[in-house]
């Protein structure tokens, strides 16, 4: 049952990623991205990372995608639907992409991973909470500073523009 779910979500993700990459219009890419994020969230669920899945949905779909859509809206002069995004040097890019893909596949298949699979599905939120507060305290505080920086920076740039 679980495998079926994996293949389903994998197909969904890859299909939507394909839509995003190969679509002409930016909005279609955005929709593609939406379903990709949803697919990836599904994958996290299958990997028993429930908090991360929901966080993914919340931040990526609720936050970044909205932002991207806003960005698109604000930066499109061309009317309505036909917002073409031209592409350049597709052929060489395709070759290189396939090459990199080939490399990754070789690497993945070649190396033996220290696999010690877990079978149970426990809720992760509590553990994450404690971990964040103890082991990862410093990155936690640094992230706050990072966010502050990003906020001030982006606000400043947006306002200046």
């Amino acid at each position, binding site marked *: 049952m679980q495998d079926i779910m994996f293949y389903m979500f994998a197909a969904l993700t890859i299909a939507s990623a394909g839509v995003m990459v190969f679509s002409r219009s930016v909005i279609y890419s955005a929709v593609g991205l939406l379903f990709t994020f949803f697919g990836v969230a599904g994958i996290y669920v299958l990997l028993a990372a429930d908090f991360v899945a929901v966080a993914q*949905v919340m931040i990526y779909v609720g936050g970044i995608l909205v932002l991207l859509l806003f960005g698109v809206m604000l930066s499109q002069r061309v009317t309505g639907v036909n917002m073409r995004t031209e592409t350049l040097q597709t052929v060489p890019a395709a070759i290189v992409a396939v090459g990199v893909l080939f490399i990754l596949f070789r690497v993945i298949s070649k190396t033996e991973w220290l696999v010690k699979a877990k079978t149970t599905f426990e809720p992760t*939120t509590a553990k994450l909470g404690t971990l964040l507060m103890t082991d990862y305290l410093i990155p936690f505080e640094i992230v706050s500073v990072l966010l502050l920086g990003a906020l001030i920076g982006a606000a400043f740039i947006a306002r200046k523009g």
Partner: protein
Amino acid sequence: MPVLSANHAVINALSILPTFSETLTNVLFMVLGAVIITGLAALLALVSVYLERKVSAHMQDRLGPMEVNTEIPILKNIGHGWAQTLADAFKLLLKEDIVPAAADKKLHLLAPFIVFAATLAAFAVLPFGRNLIPSDLNVGVFYLIAISSFVVVGIILAGWASNNKWSLLGAMRSAAQIVSFEIPASVSVLVVIMAVGSLNLGEIVEFQEGGIHRWLIWRFFPFNLLAFFIFFVASLAELNRAPFDLPEAESEIIAGFHTEYSGMKFAMFFLAEYANMFLVGVIISTLFLGGWSSPFGSFLNSAPFQVFWVFVKSFAIIFVHMWLRWTLPRVRVDQLMYTSWKVLTPFAFVSMLGVGLWMILIQ
């Protein structure tokens, strides 16, 4: 997983059906749950539409829809135009679905799907009774907030797909409104979570069982109440209702993002909106008003009554929503933003701080 075993036991007990393998029963039960909830959602939406028109009418000292009735004997004598919304539904079913030429056909079609699906997905987590939680998700509350962001995306897509600058502007405005009110809502929810110590809605309700005094609204006296109030206002804004119904305010930009929608797609948006209203009602009752726990402690606390209490509380909240719609004047956009960022958010953080300190000091 308590629910699972319970369902299993119930079915086997009924031995209506031959004993199925474990997974099949689960799937069967899930589908059953889903069907019930979807039907419930649709029904509730219609009821609340009817209720809305009746309440607003009576508030304005008029009768509201009275005429529409059926020939069916029992139902006939209910009177008061109870079938009005049913008639509307059928009307919309038959209405022509006009899709503007310049619109982006696919997105125009996709938008209602996303909105409604997201709203319905939220229903999966709502606790109607001790064992009547369709999906007893451990990260329940967090999931609810995440799902609301799906709606935002749907709205933006709807606005964009109809290729009408007014609808796009309306969509952007409503998106901005929902987005900016989501922060105070989330923070106030956080206050509750801090008190309860778990994201699972079932546990939140169990935390509040045992009489009205244990309801979260009264505990940690001022702060939870403040959180309740902030959440209530924020949810109003997220529903684009009442004082904050700027996007599809008649006097403003036509019908907001679903101006270009007609027929069944418009019905879907309308349905999603009222389902959302009911959803918010249940959430507020779960978080602050003790969910399925009866106000009288253990009395009237059996299974059917739990569902009863959930509906009573949520309809009470819906009533207040409606009530506010016809009392408070519409809010200007900048006032809207002001309330969200400069009033609700700070107070939400204050309440969080308060609860935190309260719990630290008491412990």
